[in-house]
């Protein structure tokens, strides 16, 4: 019941003894809400840790992730190779460490493409409406009708193998979600009093969208972006697993799993560690995204 009491004006509820009035907006309040969710904090720390590993990969990795060592093929875990070695004698730990770069790149670049393409399209489409909006909505409907991985695969196939093309393909497939999301936000904000006030003051459309509507629409987009980063990392790994993403010898968790399949009975560690790395990274990003949603969604307050 306290939830409802807190929503009422102070003179109705009466001042609460011993508690300072808490601000219910701004960065401080957001951080306070986010930090209350312990799992979300774990997710945040893990993501930060993985980012650090990616940035300082050469310092963390004991050996080269690429140079073969034919005297040490398919060795199980030892002191020098804690995660064993692969079919070319390379240190699996070093490859998993360098794989963080590919994975985070996949998350950031593909979601970046989707946001940069989808956000303006959605904002303009929602703000102006009309026939162009109808057309764009049917186009996104059509794109969303394709199973996500099937379309990404087909796009990656026609674009050609390679990490950059795979990321472009994933970015394109993610774009309609951001169009829909930002459009829905604009539709909600467009009729608000503050927008009308700005319009009455003679503020131009561009400035209204950029300075007034966009800042108020960002929360769900931030949440979606963090969750889609998890999806993009899985997608990159899936494409590389199928041989269409990252090409050897660049370390990617997906392509490591692809090779590991052939050595499952003799060198299972080749499959265990890269997969675990994907799982932990994606789990952490999902926790982060769920935490952001809970902290940012006013309905959940």
């Amino acid at each position, binding site marked *: 019941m306290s939830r409802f009491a807190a929503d009422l004006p102070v003179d109705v509820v009466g001042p609460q003894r011993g508690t300072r009035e808490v601000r219910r907006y701004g960065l401080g309040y957001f951080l306070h809400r986010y930090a209350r969710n312990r799992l979300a904090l774990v997710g945040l720390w893990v993501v930060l840790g993985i980012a650090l590993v990616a940035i300082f990969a050469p310092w963390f990795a004991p050996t080269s992730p690429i140079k073969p060592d034919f005297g040490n093929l398919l060795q199980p875990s030892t002191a020098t190779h804690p995660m064993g070695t692969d079919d070319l004698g390379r240190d699996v730990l070093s490859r998993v460490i360098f794989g963080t770069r590919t994975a985070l790149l996949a998350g950031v670049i593909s979601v970046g493409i989707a946001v940069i393409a989808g956000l303006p399209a959605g904002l303009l489409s929602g703000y102006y409406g009309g026939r162009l909006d109808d057309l764009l909505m049917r186009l996104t409907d059509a794109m969303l009708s*394709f199973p996500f991985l099937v379309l990404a695969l087909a796009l990656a196939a026609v674009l050609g193998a390679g990490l950059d093309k795979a990321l472009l393909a994933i970015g394109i497939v993610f774009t309609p979600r951001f169009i829909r999301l930002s459009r829905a936000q604009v539709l909600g904000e467009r009729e608000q009093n503050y927008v009308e006030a700005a319009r009455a003051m003679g503020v131009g459309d561009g400035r209204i969208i950029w300075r007034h509507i966009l800042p108020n629409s960002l929360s769900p987009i931030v949440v979606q972006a963090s969750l889609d980063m998890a999806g993009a990392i899985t997608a990159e790994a*899936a494409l590389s697993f199928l041989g269409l993403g990252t090409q050897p010898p660049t370390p990617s968790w997906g392509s490591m799993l692809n090779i590991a399949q052939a050595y499952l009975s003799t060198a299972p560690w080749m499959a265990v560690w890269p997969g675990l790395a994907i*799982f932990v990274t994606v789990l952490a990003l999902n926790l982060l995204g769920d935490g952001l949603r809970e902290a940012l969604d006013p309905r959940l307050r």
Partner: protein
Amino acid sequence: MSWYLVRRLFLTLPVLFFVSVIVFSLINLIPGDPARIMLGEEVSKEALSALRKEMGLDRPLYVRYLLWLSHVARGDFGRSVRDGRPVLDTLLLKLPVTIELAVTSLLVAWVIAIPAGVVAAWKQRTALDYAATTLALAGISVPNFWLGIMMIYLFAVNLRLLPPSGYIEPWIDLTRSLKLMVMPSIVLGAALAALVMRLLRSSMLEVLGTDYIRTARAKGLDDVVVLIRHAMKNAMIPVVTVMGLQLSGLLGGAVITETIFAVPGLGRLTVDSILTRDYPMVQGVVLFAALAVVATNLIVDLTYAVLDPRIRLGARTG
């Protein structure tokens, strides 16, 4: 009702149009010569110009689109570059395998997710709820290709309980067929189970907070009766609403699952035809998948219109 039907079908047309444009563009808007990409670099001029002619590459783009569309509309999806057989024949040959896998996976998913979702909502904020939500989070986060490989390692390589991969029709050897389908169904069903469980839990929580549930409880009805007879009916609506999304996830997941477990369905066909640059086949299978999702969404919407008068009446005024 008929007005709603017309309206809903009419809204599907532009979607179908864009689906066809996307599928057509996949092959025809890529930089370079599709015929050359298909045949590779070392190929005679004659073979190249023959394929170009067969694909109609000597004509303007919109003519090629219209020709392609008129063929597709008549069920002619072109011929496979690899074996020369009609694409549609191969699709129809592989379809039952994928349907079998999809149905068993859907069963796995719903058998796990529905009780888990109901119990998690009913016993909110208890150990049961936390266990179910944590498991769902893991199910959403685990990459299905890794789950598949780990299951093969555990159950086939180590414990030797199940065959690692392969496929046999159930009417030829039912036991072996079932054994072969266990792992693919779990791998493909896991993510879906997680999705359905989360969805059901949140809609169940919403329903459990409504007046009619309080009334049913106040009447002294048993908890289980209230849950199953009263709450589940409404809580299942969102789960059924996203059937299209579920099918889409299943078809996407089938690509991975069928590849790992050597199941000769549409998913494996997608990968095979992409890796062998059999572009007419890629086009066919991608179009097929999208059409299946569009059709499912349409069926779900129309079913609602039949069941819920608010939808069709709302459509008339709005």
